[in-house]
Structure formats: structure tokens, C-alpha cells
């Protein structure tokens, strides 16, 4: 089970800091999270970048998630 750690902003919707989700891809992970927290607007996570085991992906979809992965959602960064 991948460990998802929510930011203080996302905890407004989840009510908890961390949760374990069974998923082998980012898409499955998001589906699992949205099913668990049906009141959370999907864009709160789907329009964010994701860190999977420290690898930051700006625009994820099919990226693999391992059984022991640690996942964080964060704002997308643009830069100058």
C-alpha cells in the first residue's frame, strides 16, 4: 500500500494527514483517494504536481507507484 501524506491545505478535505492506498499507477492512486474523500474537488489533487518517492512529476497520469511508495501532492511550479 502506498502511503499518501496530505498537506495542511488538503487536510481540510481529508481530515487526516496520511492514508494508505492500494495502487500501482498514479491514476489508480487518484481514483482511490477521490473514492475515499468524495467531497474533495478532484482538481485539488489532479491539478497538482506529485512527488513519488522524492521524484517530482509536474503533470502525472500513468506514472508507476510502488507498494511502499511515499506520495505527496504539491503545487505545480513554473519558474523563470
Amino acid at each position: 500500500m502506498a502511503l499518501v501524506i496530505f498537506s495542511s491545505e488538503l487536510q481540510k478535505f481529508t481530515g487526516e494527514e496520511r492514508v494508505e492506498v492500494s495502487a500501482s499507477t498514479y491514476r489508480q492512486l487518484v481514483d482511490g483517494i477521490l473514492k475515499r474523500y468524495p467531497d474533495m474537488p478532484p482538481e485539488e489533487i489532479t491539478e497538482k504536481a506529485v512527488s513519488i518517492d522524492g521524484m517530482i512529476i509536474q503533470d502525472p497520469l500513468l506514472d508507476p507507484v510502488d507498494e511502499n511508495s511515499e506520495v505527496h501532492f504539491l503545487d505545480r511550479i513554473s519558474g523563470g
Partner: protein
Amino acid sequence: MSEAKDYKYVGTRRVRPDGYDKVTGRANYGADLTLPGMIWGRILRSPHAHAKIKGINTSKAEAHPGVSAVVTFQDFPEKSQGSPLAQNILANEKALYHGHAIAAVAAKTVQIAEEALGLIEVDYEVLTPVMDLDTAMADGATLINENLKTVGLPEPATEASNIAARQELKIGDIDAGFAEADVILEREYSTPTVHQGYIEPHACTVRYDENGQSMVWCCTQGHFDVRASTANLLGMELGKLKVVASEIGGGFGGKTTIYLEPVALMLSKKSGNPVKIVMDRDEVFKASGPGAATKSWIKIGAKKDGTFTAMQAKMAFEAGAFPGSPVGPGTMTVFAPYDVANAKVEGFDVLVNKPKVAAYRAPGAPQAEFASEMLINELAEKLGMDMIDIRLKNAAREGTQALYGPKFREIGFIECLEQCKASEHYQNAVAEGNGRGVGAGFWFNIGGVSSAVIHMNPDGTATLLEGSPDIGGSRASMQSMAAEELGIAPERIKPIVADTEMVAHNDTTGGSRTTFATGMAVIEAAQDVVRQFKERAASTWNVTPEQVEWADGVARNTAGDGEMTCQEICASAGRTGGQITGRGNINARGAGPSFSVHIADVAVDKDTGKVDVVRYTASQDAGRAIHPSYVEGQIQGGSVQGIGWALNEEYIYSDDGLLENPGFLDYRIPLASDLPMIDPIVVEVPNPFHPYGVRGVGEANIIPPLATVATAVGNAIGRPMPDLPCSPPRVLKAIQEG
């Protein structure tokens, strides 16, 4: 992926492929294209900082001899008129800052166009301008956008406000962290509105073609995004708009958005002629996107040994006239270099009557980390600690959880600190009467979408097409990485920044992404070529591709005798299956963050307040320096821009909200003659997610100078300098008050 090893071409200092054209004046920039039948566009700009537009009468301008077209906001397609981008490009119901575009004219000559601008009648109702954060955030403030409500509050906002958004990050228990502290310091800081100071003004030449392919030639950091934004505003299909990126005379984030291109296309559509628009310097300052002004409150608690127990910040960023300051990355970076268990950051995105801010190198981070780094230096002094030692005591390292979420992988912050500490500069005491400062900076760096194509020519040379505008020598890096993979000399590879028809989409050059992400696309394209080389050689020798080894530009048959050079394979390619092209289309993942640590010594003229930087050392973790000279150049360039931010640069507005210093005589950027040699230290802790370990080096270097220089000035005069810039009047005032 990455491992420490020596390469043949990566890491060498070769002559840049675009250098000759640039030093001989042959390179073509944004204003350099002329088309048959071309006419000139000019833009009418608001003389007021805040005004209702009650009416615009363009009839006299339209009738003026030599005028071919006039456009206003109403010429945007109706479905685009709700877009803040459209409303920034041409004002709708209100002029929101001094210089806001109101209308545009295209005419036979620039002079006729300017005459016609004078014939456009605009009926303004002048409103009170809102020019700073305190005024904008005050109860009962004049509203810039009467429909704007703050998002991100604990409860939904019910009333309009100039505060567009609030956001918060926290980790641990901030109250418990401060309760553990032996020492607590807090202070307020401010930074002014600044400009990126690129030398080349915004410019474009366009040709609208109703039945075929329209074309935009412009200086930009991202021509694919120019195409997307322009096509979206004008209701065009992407495939019917070709955008060509010219050479670029500086961008630093300021050329990641659009101002002129849709206007020029609308003028071209109306007139039937190609149209060129070139901003003058006055327009660049007034109406392009500057870096955000900020106010920050920082509080840090620490043990007597220097261990941070809690860090807290509240920061407000000016967005300009439309929402969207870089307060987000500001909140994420403010304490990112440090391992602290308890932290809380609150950020506000605030409207003022200034131009909509744009990105500026590590957007948001210099302002945020200026504040935190200043207080860390003050804390070091309070605790009697060395400025580098207190940072080493608390430095983030592999496994540290950043306030913004993830745990860091391999990073080089400690190495940057240690190499600065060991430097000859730091080992020597600061001269009597002078001041020394230290500062650190963190920036994420990003990946994203990149595409590259390599065409092998029949003589074994290669044409490398990439879609990332080269704003810092990236063509040289692409050439080196392609050469390393192909095993042929870099000089046999011609890197070209291709237009939007020649390669697939590339994200904008920004976020220090190009050498990392586009570099990975180039590597993938080169590996695709090598795969085909092996297949062609294998088919010639009647063996399998797995039995062919590729090294140093030569295929070798491991199942028997035989060698084929790159030239031989390319020369016979037509007969072995056709010409060889390699492709790399990726969404690059795993950008590696970069840290930077600087040391400055300054001398202050106590009679005038003038500051001279007398010595400057700057370290940065590059991951792997593909071209060390250009990595050093990035470190030096970022340092110089940060020094300018610290010492002199600021937008100066009148009480009426009019910009009073829109030119380089009055907006003082550092000159080479103002500065000592910036001594770069390139630290190389490879990014594990890049084949050569690249991180990206364009941004982290601009963050430390603000606190480094301001601390040095403060130490020289014996008074803290919490408000930038440390310009002569402000320094003199501090001395006199001391």
C-alpha cells in the same frame, strides 16, 4: 540512473555553436525580421494608474492618412473577453496601471502610427490608485476588481477584496516549537517591485492568413506557449499558427507570457498586411511583467546551540492588476533549505495598480528567502555563531522532509556550505570597516514536456532540432549530450531551436528545466539514432542488432569481423532502409533541486551611503555541469541580478501611481564596472534521475544575494537593513539614525 564517471564531451568547455553569429551581429532577434508589405504597430497606453474607461473613439485615427487598422479590446472574440490575459493585453472597462494598453494602430510608418495614437479619444474617469500592500489589504480599501473574493480562507469570503488568495503550509506544532526555544527573534522585511532588466525589448512580426497558415516571429522563452495562448485568445487552431522563436536578448522569466502577439495578429487581420510591433524601453518597464514587491514577517526560535525549533512566516506578494503573484513558490521555499520539525507559513496574493507581475528567476523565492536568510544571520549574531555554521547545523539533507511535502533525495546544500566555508574568501577576515554577509537559496527546478529530433545527414553530420529557446547557452549543452551519446564530435552536430512546425510541443524555457528536460529528450533521440545505427550495421553483416556494439562513433561486429563508422552508415542509409532520424518525446520526471550559498564583502561610503561590493563568492549545486563555462556564467549572472536587487533596483511611483523611472538611467542595474569578479564554485552532487546527473542552474543563484548583500551592508554600518534596496539614500538614512 546517474553515476560519477568521466565523459568525452560532457563536462568540457567547448565554443558555443551560436557564439559566432552573436558576436558578429549576424544573429536575428525579435525586431530583426522584415516582411514584404509590412506595416508598423504602436500601442496607446493609459496615462493613469486606475481609471474607468467610459468610452474610446478611434474614428479620427482610422481616418488618418497612412493608417491601415485600429484595434481595441472589443476586437477580441467574444468568448475570450472574460480572460484576464486578454484584459491585460488590452484594457476592457478599466485601465488598471500606468501604461496599460488601451488601443493599437497599424500604419505605414512608426511615425504615422504614433500620430494616430494621438487622435484616439479616451474618456477616463480617474480613480484612486492602490499602490502598496498595506493600502490594498486595509479594511475599506479601494477595490481594484469589484468582483474579486479571496479564495483559501477558512470560511468562504462573502465580500470583495484586493486579496485574491490566501494559502498556508504547516508542519509539526509551531507553538510547541517556540516553547522549546532558548532564543526567539522576529522581524519584518520588504522588497520592492523590480524588473528582470533584459536588454532586448519585447518585439514581434506577424502575418495573418485567413485561409492558410498565420505566422508569428517573436522573442520569447516559449514559442509553443505563445502559440497556445495566442491561438486560444483569437480562436485559432494550433495547426494554423506557426510561431518562430528569434534569438533572445534576455528573458529571466519576463518572456514567459504574451503582450504584443495577439494585438499584432488582430491588426494584421484587419489590415491585410504583415505587422511589426517593437516595445520601447519605457513600455517595457511600464507594461511588461515585473517581479513582485513583498512584505514578510519572519519568526524563528532556536536552542542555544543554534538548532532551529520553530520557523514561522507571514508573507504578502503584490500580484499587480490581476491575480497570480508567485506567493505559492514563496511559501514553499521560504524555509526549504532547513530541517525544522515545526513550521508554519501563510501567504497572500494581493492586487495593486501595477502591471501584472511575471516570473523572474526562481519566482517568489528571492523575496521569501531574503527575509528568512536575514533573520538567520541575525540569529547567528545573537548566538555568537558563525553564519555558515548555523546553516550547517540546520541544513536539509537527503531524507529531510521539506515544508512543502516531499523528502529530499540526494542534494548538495551541505557541500555548498562546506565549500564556501573552505574558500579562500571566507578563510580571510573581512577588511577593517567593511561588512560581510552570507546567504543561502533553494529552488525546485522542474521537468516537463520536451521534444527533440536528430536528422543524420549522408556525410555523418547531424542536425539536432529542439524546441526550447536558448536563453543561457543550452544549445551548447544539447550538442555535448548528443555528441556523448552518438560518439561523434560536437562540432559535427548542428543544434537548432526549431519552430512550432518542426518539432512537437516543448514547455517554455523556465524553471531551470531545459538542460535537464530537453537534454533528456535529446539523449533519447540520440539513443534512437544509435539503435538504428546498430540495426543498419547488423543488416549489413547479417547479424542481430544485439551483436553490434556502438562506441566512439563506430559500429563493431562482436560476432565476427567488421567495423562501420557513423559516416559509412549514414552514406549508405538510403540503400539500407532510408535516412536515419531519431526522436525523443518525453515528460521529464525527477527534476533535482538546486541549492546555492553566497558570501559578500562590501565597503560603505559613510558620507554618501554608496555601497561597493568588493568581493563575492557564489557556490551552487549543478548536479553535473554539462558545460562548466555556462554553469559558471549562470551563477555569475544570477548573482549580479541579485546584487542589483539588493542594492539599487526598484520601481519608483508618484503619489498618483505613475512610474517615474522607466529607463536604465533611473532604474539602476549593476554594470560590469560596478562589480568585482564573481567567483563561482560549481558543486556537483548528481541528480539520480538524470542520465548525466543534471539538476538545472538558471535560478537558485539569484536567491542568496539579497540577504547576503543586505547583511553585509548592515554589518558594515552596524544597523540592520530589512528593507530593500540598500540604495544610497536608504543606507545614509540608516547611518544617520544609528
